């Protein structure tokens, strides 16, 4: 995936997302996009750039700052045969519209006993690291993954970004598509170069619900998603220099969760470190560790560990925020402490 050959078609995640949406819109009239500043501006994070120029304002709809209205409108449209892609600009804003998400979008298939499908994608940006403080830097992966009825994915690179978006748009169930700002490839946000990878021009899907082993190893399993994957890969490089062989798993999808890939890896390595930029407690890290432990503790050679964001709001000051964020050094240190 994170291939580096020179004759490649490397895209940023932002461009990969926009390309996927555009390709699907060309072949499927039912797909349209709604959100704040996704039209002329092309999305604050660039993932709808170029769409309004190609598809016009009817299919690429800038909305009022009314997340409850337009997300629940997407549900109504999806149940009526459309396939909306909506954007919640920052995941941090989920609190103003979570009823429309978790209690409406995620449950109407069930409440209708399967009479209706709700084919929609809710894309939303996650993550900090650029000093945007406590209401614009959260990940909240666990908050979405905890509640039933919605699939939850998060790509770590452009290839997956495109394939997951296409898969999400073709899914008849609602998909939360969480993209990390630090991987978008927007210069003004800084960016992780490892996220810009070879991305085929033609359309393709990446399976929702399947984790990927990005690097094989024998001594420890590092599990993460989105930015966590890059931290894990860097830690794995670092550990390799020290003669430690780390396996790196990109979860790709939190719901459905590919428990098997994690379990199989830890069965081999005997050690587990979960990397998660979301808050530490009651979230992703606990679920991954529990997945392994409830399956078979005899396979573990050491207590599993987590490198996560502590249970505090996200501070503005760079030094304080960086102190809290997971990084490769912390992963290496966690391994050494095992």
């Amino acid at each position: 995936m994170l291939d580096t050959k020179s004759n490649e078609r490397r895209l940023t995640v932002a461009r990969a997302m926009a390309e996927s949406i555009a390709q699907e819109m060309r072949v499927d009239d039912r797909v349209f996009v709604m959100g704040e500043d996704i039209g002329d501006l092309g999305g604050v994070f660039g993932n709808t750039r170029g769409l309004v120029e190609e598809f016009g304002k009817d299919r690429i709809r800038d909305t009022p700052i009314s997340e409850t209205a337009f997300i629940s409108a997407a549900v109504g449209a999806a149940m009526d045969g459309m396939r909306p892609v909506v954007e919640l600009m920052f995941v941090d804003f989920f609190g103003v519209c979570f009823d429309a998400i978790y209690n409406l979008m995620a449950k109407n298939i069930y409440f209708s006993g399967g009479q209706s499908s709700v084919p929609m994608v809710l894309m939303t940006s996650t993550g900090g690291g650029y000093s945007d403080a406590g209401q614009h830097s959260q990940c909240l992966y666990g908050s979405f993954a905890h509640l039933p009825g919605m699939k939850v994915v998060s790509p770590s690179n452009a290839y997956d970004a495109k394939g997951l978006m296409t898969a999400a748009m073709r899914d008849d169930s609602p998909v939360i598509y969480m993209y990390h700002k630090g991987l978008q490839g927007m210069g003004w946000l800084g960016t992780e170069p490892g996220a810009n990878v070879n991305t085929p021009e033609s359309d393709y899907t990446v399976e929702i619900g399947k984790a990927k082993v990005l690097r094989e190893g024998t001594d420890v399993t590092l599990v993460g998603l989105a930015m966590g994957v890059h931290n894990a890969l860097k830690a794995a490089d670092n550990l390799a220099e020290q003669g430690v062989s780390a396996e790196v798993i990109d979860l790709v999808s939190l719901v459905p969760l590919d428990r098997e890939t994690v379990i199989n890896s830890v069965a081999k390595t005997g050690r587990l470190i979960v990397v998660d930029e979301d808050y530490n407690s009651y979230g992703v890290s606990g679920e991954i560790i529990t997945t392994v432990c409830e399956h078979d503790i005899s396979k573990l050679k050491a207590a599993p560990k987590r490198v996560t964001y502590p249970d505090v709001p996200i501070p503005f000051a760079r030094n304080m925020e960086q102190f809290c964020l997971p990084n490769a050094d912390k992963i290496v240190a966690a391994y050494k402490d095992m």
Partner: protein
Amino acid sequence: MSPTKEQQLWMYENMVVSRRFEESIEKIYMEGKSPAFNMANGPIPGEMHLSNGQEPVAVGVCAHLTKDDIVTATHRPHHQAIAKGVDLKKMAAEIFGKVTGLSGGRGGHMHIFDSNVNFACSGIIAQGCGPACGAALSRKMQNKPGVAVAFLGEGAVNQGAFHEAMNLAAVWKLPVVFVVEDNAWGISVSKADSTAVPRNDVRAAAYGMPGHFIENNDPYAIFEIAGQAIERARAGEGPTLIEIETFRLAGHFMGDAEGYRPEGEKDALFEKDPIPSMRERLLADGVSDAAGLDKIEADALARVEEAIQFARDSEYAPDEDALTSVFAA
């Protein structure tokens, strides 16, 4: 715009079906719940919100809708569902939690869904406003006919979701009608204690859309105003807000002792029960004779009894069905 004779009889019939249906549900709901009233017991467990007295709203509005139009309903949905043409047998079975129910027992009385007639429902206040806009947008974008009606209570108007949807509907000129059932109460809180204005129709101006208030639960006036609004929506002229004074003849939900209601209030409402008064008017206007109306009533009762019997006779779903239909098939 006045209802034709046929429409008047359709309205009356559906009001009666709704009333008989709820009377029946009311009785069955109490089975297994005495001497001790425990909501968890009996053939119909859980909360039960009856709409007795609010039938004129449902029929006055839905008389203008076809099965292709969309309705998003509230936690008090039976009259709305019946008027929209939801399958009565399957709805009864759903309320009983049976496998033959609309949703195989997953939804229950607050989650009545019938995709054949584009009917959806929610237990969350004002949650249906946004989806109604979305369905309306869908029709507009697909160039398909269809109007969406979002029902909500007068208490629900103070929820943010209402405001956002009203604005969206107006900005995008969507074919939606917002119908507020003003039964004067949001559970135990009166309209005056919850709402800054005596009539919510004035709130339409905040969105540049027409607003109407209809007094006294009058099915004819409702028919007329709703008809105009729906015609307007169909003509592409955008949304309308209608608030309708109606009567909550029962408690908020069954088991509600209603100690908060001023003495005599309910008696006065029963005096104005819209069903007998519509019957009188139909007779006075010569729309039907007594025998004709008796037959409608008898047929209504028979339909209800058949539906209830169907529900009673049906099986419960296998337990494991709880785990299915989370995602689309």
